[in-house]
C-alpha cells in the first residue's frame, strides 16, 4: 500500500519537524545542563523570533541576510536580558523558583505579543527564493525544506564545533559538569551561563523564522507546546548532552510524523500522547536519556 516515495516523503517531514525540535532542544539542554533550569521561556523565543523576522523582513523590507542576522542578534539579546533580569539573581535559590520564573517569563512574553502585536495569527510568507516547489519521482519539496535541513545541520555542526573546540565551549561543558571547579579554573561562570543563554536564544529565534517560513502562519501561542516538546527531546536524548538533544529532537519529530503516517488515521489523536509516552518510557528504562551520562547512582 505504501510506496517508497511515500516513505521517503514522510521521513523527510519527520526530519524537518525533528530539526525544529532539535534546534530548540540545543539551547535548552545547555542551560539545563548548567543550571538545572527547565527554561520554558525558551519556547517564547521562537514566537518572538518569528514576529521579529516578520517585522524586519516583511514590514521593513530589509534584505534577507541582514534580517536573519538581526533576528539572531535579537534572540541573543533577549536571552541575555532574561538571564540578567532574573535568572542570575535566583541562582542558588530554590530550584522551583527558577522554574516558576521561567514559566512567568513565558506567560509574560506570550501575552505581551498578544497585546502588542495581535491576538490573531499572522500570515508569514515564505521568502520568494525559498518558495520554489520541486517535484521529483520520490520527493516533493520546496526550497525552504532544504533550507531548514541544511541550516539546521549547519547550526548543529557549528554548535558542536563551538562546544568541542573553542575555549568558551570547553568552559561551558566544564561548567555544566562541575560549576565549583570551573570557578577554580578562573572561568567566570556567570559569563559562561550568559553565553549559553545568548546562543540558545539566538538559535531559538532563528527557529522561529524557520517555523514561519515552513508553516506560513505565526501566532502568539506557537511557542508553548513546541517548547515543552523540545524539552522532552532534551530528556529523551539525555540531559546536558548536545548530540543527545539533537537525537532526541529527531526521535520526536520522526515519531510524531511516522506514527501518523503509518498507523491507521484514527490514531492521529495520539500524536502528543506518543511523544510523551516515549518520554515516560525512556525515563523508566533509561532515566538518563538515550545518550545521557548516568548520574543517578547514589552512595
Amino acid at each position, binding site marked *: 500500500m505504501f510506496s517508497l516515495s511515500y516513505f521517503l516523503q514522510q521521513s523527510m517531514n519527520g526530519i524537518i519537524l525533528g530539526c525544529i525540535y532539535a534546534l530548540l532542544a540545543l539551547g535548552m539542554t545547555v542551560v539545563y545542563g548548567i543550571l538545572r533550569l527547565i527554561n520554558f521561556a525558551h519556547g517564547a523565543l521562537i514566537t518572538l523570533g518569528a514576529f521579529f523576522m516578520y517585522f524586519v523582513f516583511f514590514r521593513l523590507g530589509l534584505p534577507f541576510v541582514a534580517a536573519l542576522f538581526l533576528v539572531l542578534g535579537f534572540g541573543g539579546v533577549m536571552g541575555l536580558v532574561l538571564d540578567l533580569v532574573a535568572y542570575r539573581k535566583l541562582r542558588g535559590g530554590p530550584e522551583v523558583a527558577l522554574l516558576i520564573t521561567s514559566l512567568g517569563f513565558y506567560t509574560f512574553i506570550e501575552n505581551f505579543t498578544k497585546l502588542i502585536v495581535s491576538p490573531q495569527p499572522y500570515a508569514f510568507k515564505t521568502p520568494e527564493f525559498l518558495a520554489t516547489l520541486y517535484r521529483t519521482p520520490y520527493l516533493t519539496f520546496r526550497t525552504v525544506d532544504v533550507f531548514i535541513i541544511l541550516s539546521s545541520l549547519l547550526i548543529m555542526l557549528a554548535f558542536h564545533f563551538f562546544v568541542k573546540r573553542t575555549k568558551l565551549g*570547553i568552559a561551558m*561543558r566544564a561548567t555544566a*559538569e562541575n560549576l*565549583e571547579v*570551573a*570557578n*577554580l*579554573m*578562573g572561568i567566570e561562570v556567570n559569563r559562561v551561563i550568559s553565553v549559553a543563554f545568548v546562543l540558545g536564544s539566538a538559535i531559538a529565534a532563528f527557529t522561529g523564522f524557520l517555523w514561519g517560513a515552513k508553516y506560513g502562519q505565526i501566532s502568539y501561542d506557537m511557542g508553548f507546546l513546541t517548547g515543552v516538546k523540545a524539552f522532552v527531546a532534551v530528556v529523551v536524548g539525555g540531559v546536558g548532552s548536545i548530540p543527545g538533544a539533537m537525537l532526541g529532537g529527531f526521535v520526536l519529530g520522526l515519531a510524531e510524523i511516522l506514527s501518523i503516517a503509518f498507523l491507521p488515521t484514527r490514531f492521529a489523536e495520539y500524536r502528543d500522547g506518543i511523544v510523551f509516552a516515549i518520554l515516560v518510557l525512556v525515563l523508566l528504562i533509561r532515566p538518563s536519556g538515550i545518550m545521557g*551520562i548516568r548520574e543517578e547512582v547514589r552512595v
Partner: protein
Amino acid sequence: MGQVISLLKVEKVTVKYGVIPAIQELELEVERGQIVALLGANGAGKTTTLKTIMGVLRPARGRIFYDGKDITFLPAPQRVRLGVALVPEGRGIFNRLTVRENLLLGAYHRKDQGGILQDLEEVYRLFPRLKERENQIAGTLSGGEQQMLAIGRGLMSRPRLMLLDEPSLGLAPLVVRELYTLIRRIRESGVTILLVEQSAPMAIGIADYVYVLETGVVKIAGTPREVESLEEVKKVYLGG
C-alpha cells in the same frame, strides 16, 4: 625595603560553616620557591584553609595577603589570574572532557596562544602518560593519571603558587612516589607549593616548612628538622 615579603601570608583567619568554626585564627606563611606542607587528621581544617586561600570560602575574620597584596575579598577567578592554582581534593577533573580539554581549561584566563601551547608541551613532557591519552575522556583515566592531570591542569595556569590538596589520596604507594618526584620537579621550575597531606613522612620529606593542624588550629609549626621527631606528629594522628 629590607624584609622580603613572603608570597602568601594568612593572618588570623577564621572560617565558619554556619556557626561552627572550621579554622580559627589561623596563621600561615609561604615563602617564595618553598614547598610548605600542611598536615593534619581528617576534619582538621586543611581543605578549608586551601579553599579560603583560593577564594572559594570567605573568612569570617582575618586577612590573606598574596605577594604583599590583600586578596581577602578577591573572587576565585581573579586569584587564578594572579597566579594561584588549586588542585582540589579528589582531583576535581572534568570527567566528560578529554585530557587535552582539561589541560586547556587550566589556562583559561591566559591569552597567549603560543605560551599556552608551549606550556601544554611542557606538561606533556612532565607527564608523558597524559600525552599518550591526550584525546581520551578524562573519566576513563586511572586514579594516578587523573591526579597527574589535575596537577598538570594546575600548571597550565602558569601559577606562582600552587595549592595541592591531598594529591596522594587513594593512590598506590608506587604512584605516590612518582607523584612526589614530580612535585619536587615542579618546585624546581620555580613554582611555590602549599601541600596538604595526610601522609606525613612523605610530605615532611619533601617540605621546606611544616604546619600541623588540629581541629582548626595550628598545633605544630617548624622546619622538617624541627618536627622530625615523628612522635609528636604521630600523637596528632593516632592519639596519645
